[in-house]
């Protein structure tokens, strides 16, 4: 059982480039999330989705876009990368309901130079 799988694990971008972080889960969870983790800052929610075709902004959505065409996949797109987007990105999923715990991927470390 793979759980939540993120690719790539590491990536270096130049300022102004674009890229997509991939996330897929095989647990049939309706809820999916993208967080970024910066040292000493905890995790900040970027976008979330409560089901296929439904997405909404979190706390720090600027500079990012998401789509949710299937239950399994929730890619995060960075347009015009900036140094402020240097971070570790985590995708997570949870079963329907606010009582459900989140299952996290292993993270994608992005550096923008």
């Amino acid at each position, binding site marked *: 059982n793979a759980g939540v799988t993120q690719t790539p694990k590491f990536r270096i971008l130049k300022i102004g480039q674009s890229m997509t972080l991939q996330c897929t889960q095989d647990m049939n969870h309706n809820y999916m999330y993208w967080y970024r983790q910066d040292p*000493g800052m905890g*995790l900040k*929610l970027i976008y979330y989705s409560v089901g296929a075709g439904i997405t909404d902004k*979190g706390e720090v959505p600027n500079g990012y876009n998401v789509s949710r065409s299937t239950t399994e996949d929730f890619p995060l797109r960075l347009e015009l990368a900036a140094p402020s987007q240097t971070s570790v990105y*985590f995708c997570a999923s949870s079963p329907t309901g*606010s*009582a459900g*715990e*989140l299952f996290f991927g292993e993270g994608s470390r992005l550096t923008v130079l």
Partner: protein
Amino acid sequence: AQSVAQPEDQVNVAEGNPLTVKCTYSVSGNPYLFWYVQYPNRGLQFLLKYITGDNLVKGSYGFEAEFNKSQTSFHLKKPSALVSDSALYFCAVRLSSGAGSYQLTFGKGTKLSVIP
């Protein structure tokens, strides 16, 4: 808006001693509370949660946490620390219902170091 405070950036404890990692929260409604652990270069792993009922909840690896509504706290505890418990610990909160129930808000994390 909901928020979580973890007042200690780092906690050091000797192996075999009890440990406590502190967490306080703020929400406008009934909270669901969670603790997660993160080992170096890994994703977060769920430890335990408080939904309703008994204020003392037990979780993975011998950890437990006590929900205190009057003090809006949810401290993580373990009777006897192991060196392998050394990691980064996150407290998190979400509303039990309403629009905010979709979003899990995390604290900044507390680094636990267990000294042999």
